[in-house]
């Protein structure tokens, strides 16, 4: 069975693009209303932005590779690890 990943319904988030800030990619997110703030920097933010569109693990790996100018093989392990962490803290849903 192929799983699809998406940002959980109770997550609010904002990225540097929303803040009109030119510094390195960063996303700030939280589960509302009581979750702690979570910070995703650099490539972590890139994976988050890929997750914003939702998709399978392969979709997210492909998007992250494209956004970082890397090959899918180069990013696969890191993307898998991060998505596992994001699922564990329940900011990403696995359907």
């Amino acid at each position, binding site marked *: 069975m192929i799983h699809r990943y998406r940002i959980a319904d109770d997550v*609010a988030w*904002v990225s540097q693009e929303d*803040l009109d800030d030119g510094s390195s990619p960063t996303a700030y997110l*939280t589960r509302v*209303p009581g979750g*702690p703030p979570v910070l995703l920097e650099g490539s972590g933010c890139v994976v988050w932005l890929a997750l914003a569109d939702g998709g399978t693990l392969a979709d997210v790996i492909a998007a992250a590779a494209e956004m970082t100018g890397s090959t899918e093989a180069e990013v696969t392990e890191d993307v898998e690890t*991060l998505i596992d962490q994001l699922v564990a803290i329940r900011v990403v849903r696995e359907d």
Partner: protein
Amino acid sequence: MVLMTEEPDVATAPIAARVHLAHAVVQKLAEERNIELLHLKGPAVLPGLRAEGRQSSDVDVLVRPSHLPRLISAVESIGWEQRTDFATGSVFAHAANWWHDDWGWLDVHVSWPGVGVDDEQAFDVLARGALQHSIAHWGCPVPNRTAQRLILVLHAARSPGGTDVDHAWTAAEPAEQAEVRALARELDAEVALAAGIGELALHRDHPTYALWRHFAEGGSRLDEWRARLAAAPSTRAKAGLVTAAMRVNRDHLRMELGRPPTRAEVRARQRQRLRKAAAELSTRVKRA
């Protein structure tokens, strides 16, 4: 490759990020408890009504006055701590604020300075035609464009010198300005609107004229109190103002000190205020 930090030091998150997320946090609380509120200022401002890149340092919401107790209970349930109350939060007694270690300042308004009609009625009018605006990818109700223009101009009337009037009023089409004037009439906010757009002189005979002129042109604390007394609609309101004037604002003193003030500190501040009042009177006597 990947960096993820949970519960980062607040100082590491830019204020703008915290403000965006905090709007969403407050909105979620409101949804859970059927609290009607409108998000104001900062990221709640619709595109084009404010200078690009302008950031807000706190979260401002206008709550339906009858829902205030529920909102207070909700925000305090997740760690916001009240730092000022409505009597001492501002000269208009229209807002109080709360602090949260993760989300920073939350300003809760039950009315908007310059609006003359009853607070509950004002909320109905400002909420009419409210829009869903995404803040931190979370749908937040905000006043419509006309109401936002009026709110920004009324705020500028109290805090002149910014560029809000340029964007919210001067750049508006004549038809849009007419809509703002009509809304101001409905809310009994015409004098404050006039103060914001440079037409205050047309309202010289209005009881609140001196108060808005004070905000526009500045003046001493004594001038401010004289203007507030003139603007107070009833004898009881005037008596309340005088009582408040004699009281040291413990909330502000607490923020200044970073801890609750002692009785001795409150007394010392009272003496300081008396000295300042005496100095102002002395200056006036010399001028006369």
